[in-house]
């Protein structure tokens, strides 16, 4: 057996990630060659190239990494904790709740007081949502209970978001918020990256720290506990890690769904189905998926650039449906 099953697949994903990052710096409205990208990065090329690479495309690449890693790792971690392959921050309403938190700060103008209010509120709402989900599903959670709890939470967050939009005094604000809610990593600056970077990194560290215990949790909570797994600590790690990483990302990028569902599912077989070993590859795989989707939507050249959240939903929803159809027998 493989002692470190996550290593080979992680290295492959890392190589893909580097390649896609370079591609992401090259492709776009004004295509650049590899040499021009390097020149722009190092500051030796023309000022125009420096501007495009450093100010426009690099923040986008970094955000894709952060967002993809947050969604992929939290999806894998939630699946391990809830012992359920359908757990995912988007599907379970965690992203929608974070979105609500962000919209409320925009709505009440709290962001004028402090920029940090935006990610803080999004993370707080994500935390409440994750805690609620856990409380609803911990006792012998069937797939059905979990999904229903997620549907309820998503609907509630969606309804409250709609209420805020409904009551918003300024129609221009409404359009901004709606577009932002669709989810995108374009037109973001390094100021946006700074806003979520520390929380995403802390969140990821918390999630990865739970890896070993998640492996043992495959045996069920009782036997895992008998083997010395501290269940309250594990729950705390994963719930906080998810809330921090997903909440902070959503406050900058809007809600982007299905990455946390699709990525762990595709990678599970490469880590011998071990839920803990799945965390790192899922983080890297999430970043690969987000970057690839972001490059694709730039390349297909629709008259108006597609939003990332729209693309992931278009790909992810049928995937989810297929997963449900396959698991139908033991689901209900």
């Amino acid at each position, binding site marked *: 057996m493989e002692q470190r099953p996550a290593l080979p697949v992680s290295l492959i994903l890392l190589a893909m990630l580097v390649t896609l990052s370079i591609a992401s710096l090259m492709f776009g409205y004004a295509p650049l060659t590899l040499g021009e990208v390097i020149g722009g990065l190092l500051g030796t090329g023309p000022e125009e190239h420096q501007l495009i690479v450093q100010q426009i495309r690099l923040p986008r690449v970094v955000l894709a990494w952060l967002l993809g890693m947050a969604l992929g790792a939290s999806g894998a971690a939630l699946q391990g904790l809830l*012992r359920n392959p359908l757990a995912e921050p988007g599907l379970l309403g965690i992203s929608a709740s974070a979105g609500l938190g962000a919209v409320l700060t925009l709505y009440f103008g709290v962001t004028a007081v402090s920029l940090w209010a935006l990610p803080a509120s999004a993370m707080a709402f994500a935390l409440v949502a994750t805690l609620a989900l856990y409380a609803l599903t911990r006792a012998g959670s069937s797939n059905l209970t979990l999904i229903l709890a997620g549907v309820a939470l998503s609907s509630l967050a969606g309804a409250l978001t709609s209420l805020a939009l409904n009551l918003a005094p300024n129609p221009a604000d409404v359009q901004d918020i709606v577009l932002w809610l669709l989810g995108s990593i374009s037109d973001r600056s390094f100021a946006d990256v700074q806003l979520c970077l520390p929380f995403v990194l802390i969140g990821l560290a918390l999630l990865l*720290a739970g890896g070993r215990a998640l492996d043992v949790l495959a045996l069920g909570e*009782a036997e895992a506990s*008998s083997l010395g797994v501290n269940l309250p600590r594990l729950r705390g790690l994963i719930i906080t890690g998810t809330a921090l990483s997903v909440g902070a990302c959503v406050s900058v990028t809007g809600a982007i769904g299905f990455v946390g569902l699709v990525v762990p599912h595709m990678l599970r077989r490469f880590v011998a189905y071990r839920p803990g070993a799945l965390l790192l590859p899922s983080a890297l795989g999430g970043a690969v998926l987000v970057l690839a989707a972001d490059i694709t939507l730039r390349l297909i050249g629709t008259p108006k650039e597609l939003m990332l959240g729209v693309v992931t939903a278009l790909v992810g929803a049928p995937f989810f449906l297929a997963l449900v159809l396959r698991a139908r027998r033991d689901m209900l």
Partner: protein
Amino acid sequence: MSLLEAVGLTVDVGAKTLVRDLGFALGEGEMLGLIGPNGAGKTTVVKAIVQLMAHRGEIRLQGRPLSQMSARERARLVAYLSQDDRLQWPISVFDLVALGRHPYRGSWWRGGGAPSAEDLAVIEEALRATDVTGLRDRRADELSGGERARARLARVLAVQAPLLLADEPVAALDPMHQLRVMELLRAHCNGGAAVIVVMHDLTLASRFCDRLLLLDSGAAVAAGTVSEVLTAENLERVYGIRAVTGEHEQQRYIIPWTCSAR
């Protein structure tokens, strides 16, 4: 001194008392059969020992209260095989058994990511003892019931704890595997470990256990040797059955025959 001692063990859940003022002791190399009808509190007793359920009274292992040990220390001293054999992820038999070494693994940031050479040796020995070496790369969720029972037993043996608790390890197994699992537990005892096994099959209990503890409604009805505990009167009073009993090769067999009017 006994390896395990329970004094005044009481478990309350809400206003309900599941186990009442139970006391027992168990020495090294001894196998205690925990028997009684459904709902008698057998599983509760086992869960209280593993500290999965809050309890009053004291449970001491090697003279020290279990409730005061760290989770990691307790995990090395008490191995627990639960009734629930569902496995959410299709991990391999080897990986399943390797989880038994969790209490010995270092933290991941101190390079404890992979099992040590000693861990590997223990895992191999557990696989061999339960005769699942040939299944090591198979997905644990695709095994037959008997194979899975042996693989799970290998997992608890890999803990190398002086006390092993097995909650209905032979329920749902075919007769050959029932005997096989009991023989494996007996061999584990003969190696010096103490075993508490929850069972319903009275013949297997009397054949393999050194002593029996008969529970009814959370209280001990009888404790001692097979002939002391499994009397016709106790069977009728606690289980509500009349049984055919006899001896074969100087060992008792008990076949439940009719329900007696309660």
